[in-house]
């Protein structure tokens, strides 16, 4: 495949999803709560954009009824809209839990299997 042929809108969006996923995965695998939360946020972007893109990429045809001929798919947009708001709520809860754990134990490690395996 010619590398230049990839310089199109679809590939830009697809690779953006991929890079967001990769960075998100990397951060999620860190050992402290804050980078993990950041990673989850990046994954949220990736998933939201992915879901949004399931309506395919249409430029200049918002789903606002006018005299236009074509509209983009409104359904993924409605799904993603609530997903964005809910993900705020979820992020807030996770941050609160992380904060509580840190304030309670002065330790923001995610990975504390050693103490769990101990009898």
């Amino acid at each position, binding site marked *: 495949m010619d590398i230049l042929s990839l310089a199109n*809108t679809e*590939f*830009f*969006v*697809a*690779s*953006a999803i*991929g*890079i967001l*996923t*990769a960075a998100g*995965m*990397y*951060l*999620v*695998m860190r*050992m402290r709560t*804050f*980078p*993990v*939360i*950041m990673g989850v*946020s990046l994954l949220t972007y*990736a998933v939201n954009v992915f879901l*949004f893109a399931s*309506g*395919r990429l*249409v*430029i200049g*045809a918002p*789903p*606002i*009824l*006018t005299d236009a001929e074509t*509209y*983009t*798919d*409104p*359904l993924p*947009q*409605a799904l*993603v*809209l*609530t997903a964005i*708001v*809910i993900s*705020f*709520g979820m*992020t807030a809860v996770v*941050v*609160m839990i992380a*904060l*509580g754990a*840190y*304030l*309670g134990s002065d330790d*923001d490690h995610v*990975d*504390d*299997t050693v103490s769990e395996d101990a009898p």
Partner: protein
Amino acid sequence: MSLFLIVALPFLGALLPGLMNTAGRAACAGVTFTVTLAALIGLLTNLPAVLAGEVVTTGFDWIPVLGLNVTLMLDGLGFFFACLILGIGLLIITYARFYLAREDNMGEFFTYLLLFQGAMVGIVLSDNILLLLVFWELTSLSSFLLIGFWKHLPEGRQGALMALTVTGMGGLAMIGGMLILGNIVGSYDLSVILQHRDMIQASPLYLPALLLILLGCFTKSAQFPFHFWLPHAMAAPTPVSAYLHSATMVKAGIFLMARMWPVLSGTPEWFMIVTSAGLITMVLGAVIGLFKHDLKALLAFSTVSHLGLITMLLGTGTAFGAMAAVFHILNHATFKAALFMSTGIIDHETHTRDIRRLGGLRKLMPITFVIATIAALSMAGIPLLNGFLSKEMMLEEAGHTVLFSSPYLVPVLATIGSLFSAAYCFRLISHTFLGPVRDDYPAHPHDPPLGLYGPPALLVVLVVVIGIAPFLVEPFVRTVTATVLGDAASLSKAHIKIWHGLVPAVFMSIAAVVGGLIMLAAFKPALRLWDAAPRPEAKSIFDAIIFACVGLAQRITHTLHDGAFTRYAAIFGVTVVAYGTFAWHTGTIGAATRTPQVATPVQYASWLMLVTATVGMAFLHRNRLLSLMLIGIVGLIVSVGFVFFSAPDLAMTQLTVEVVTIILLLLALNFLPNRTPVESSVVRRTRDIAVATVTGIAATVLSYHYLLRDTVAPSISDFHLANSYKGGGGTNVVNVILVDFRGFDTYGEIIVLGIAALLIYALTETLLGGPVRARLLNRKPDQPRSGNMHPMMMVVMTRVIMPVVLMVGFYIFWRGHNEPGGGFIAGLIVSIAVVMQYMASGFSWTSARLRYPYHGVIGAGVLVAGLTGIGSWFFAKPFLTSDFTYVRIPPFEKFELATAALFDLGVFLAVVGAVMLSLESFSRLARRAHVPDTEHPMDIDPSRNSDTVEA
């Protein structure tokens, strides 16, 4: 009475004993008795139809897609078993009323008993085999509760657990068998399945189905090698043992074998498996039973042995065998229930069941002696009692059965089984009742009140009546047998008679009884031999297997899911990619149907910014503040992307959510360390980078490929586009979907959002109420704080801008139905306006001016949205049906009024409440941490230099 009612009565009645608990024991037992009696009478009203050979059916569709329908059927076999269950149930209820001690919770006991009874009746009346499975599992569960009724006894709990494990496992296997059977025939209705004998037996799946179903039957009916659970279940109160382990639950497996007899029996596989299992169980149970000292254990093994006998009879696959089996089910239920109840009486009166501590009770408990002796002699197979008749038939059938091409194997083993059976019966009588009266009983034995001996006495009367006049029950037995046989075989010509002439069975019978007496005489040396012989202890084997299974499960679980999020994120990522790669290589990928769009310079620039910010986050994430800024950039570019790709609503939502998220994370970062230290090794980081890269590439490839292809199936979006204005009255399709087409989803989502906010609030409360509070109060900020807490410029600016922002929010909300906007976005905008007040003017200034608590705002939002939905009920429309109209109030333009706007108002309020409650909770933590802030703008804190930690 309708079959539904017969099945439903015990279940409905199960609510009553608990309610009657305070009304006294008699009332509690009385109501249970009445419910059971009503069900029995209802059943008996169907007797004429059953005797006429009719099959009473009724039913309705429950989940037709799965083939799961509530269809009930009453034929001879079902009637017979239902009669046993309800009839003996009545006796047991009476008995239990007097048996249970004052400290036992009688309401609880009878509730479980009725649940069990309903489940049993459900099994025998089910036409649909999936429904039957539901009831089957219900008996396992309810018997678990009954066996473990005495929760304070460890044996009770362990016995209940073992019974549940074994029968539950068998039930699982049976589900598989039933599904196979249903698949072969194409129907899950017994009435249909029973018509397809040839089709089922010709199917290559016959053997697996048979094995799985038999596994269910054998575990339930305690057949070898699953016989071990039954003796351990004897830790149950005696009424439970008498009910479950003589007449009902253990007979469920037998019932099912009889039910499936027409389609499953008659093949070599059936014959070999069922006959040998039955034979082994019969002999083994009888031998072990003889040497048990606990009366209930003795009876438990005798039950195992007799169940084996019935199984063997069903296994032979002949019409005569089936008749003998049916007859023995009836006889066994009568004498065994009577024996269990007698044992219960002995236990109740002497406070021991250990046969070695008993003896001589004949003089002290004459009534019990008569009852138990008649029942035991019947079990031993003494003439003129019903056990003799069916045992003769069994021996007769055994005499004709050739197993493993030996004509002697079955008759000899059957005789040995009967011999040991006779021996333990004689031992039961002689070691308990005969002999001299002892003076070392744990209590002073005497005959119990009528309530305790009445029920077994009634059964013993039946034992004698059937034994002397078998012709009274013969027509009934023949009717039941006819339904067992179905079309597979015709009824045997043989009659049930006391004397058949000098047939081989008579000699086998004599041999058994005489051998039994000799065995009793030689019991002491035999016991020594038995005690010396090595025997596997079933419980320890069972425990070892369970221990091994649990250990294995734990090892697997702990490897995959050890509680560390990082590990299973990696496992999840790799697994998904592996499956995806597999699908990629094995599936077919259609050709691209869309032409890629040419990228513009703006796209290049945005892409570059997004990639830089994202990659930067991965590399610079240790500086937490920096990564917060970078994620802001990511969010902005995503918003821009939404604008570009025709999603203005999304862009507005993303942008506003971005603002509140960043504020939230800043508040959190206030407490968390500013930097993430380097901890993971280079190897680990390399591994993580590899996993991340692979998942990233996978996501790219997947996204790219589907972006270039059209949807496989036509999207339902066209419907939304076409009906948005016509049906929903709005031109912004996204908003109409949210508040109208999928309003119910949105309703659920605002509730989730509200719950999340309340959870944050609750967590904050918990933190501030615990030891964390002191830590927060003593905490010193690790950064130098700003000189002016409330900068004048910002205070003035935010206060001036507040009405403007509210106006914008109102505008965005109101236009949402037709233009980009709506409740979600307006809610976020208003939240930002309020948050700005907190940031600029401080917590105390803002909260002093707060009229409504945010909890209330969330509640109001959910309530408004819910009431809007309920409103449509008043117009006889489904929940959340919307309506709209256009009004014109001069001097305004014509505008639209829609109920959807009211719903959107609910969304708006819930979003404002949830966002504000979350942020406020975070800032309350902050407020505890520092000196109380002040209401005045541009306040300089003189202590700021002293309490900063020197970094």
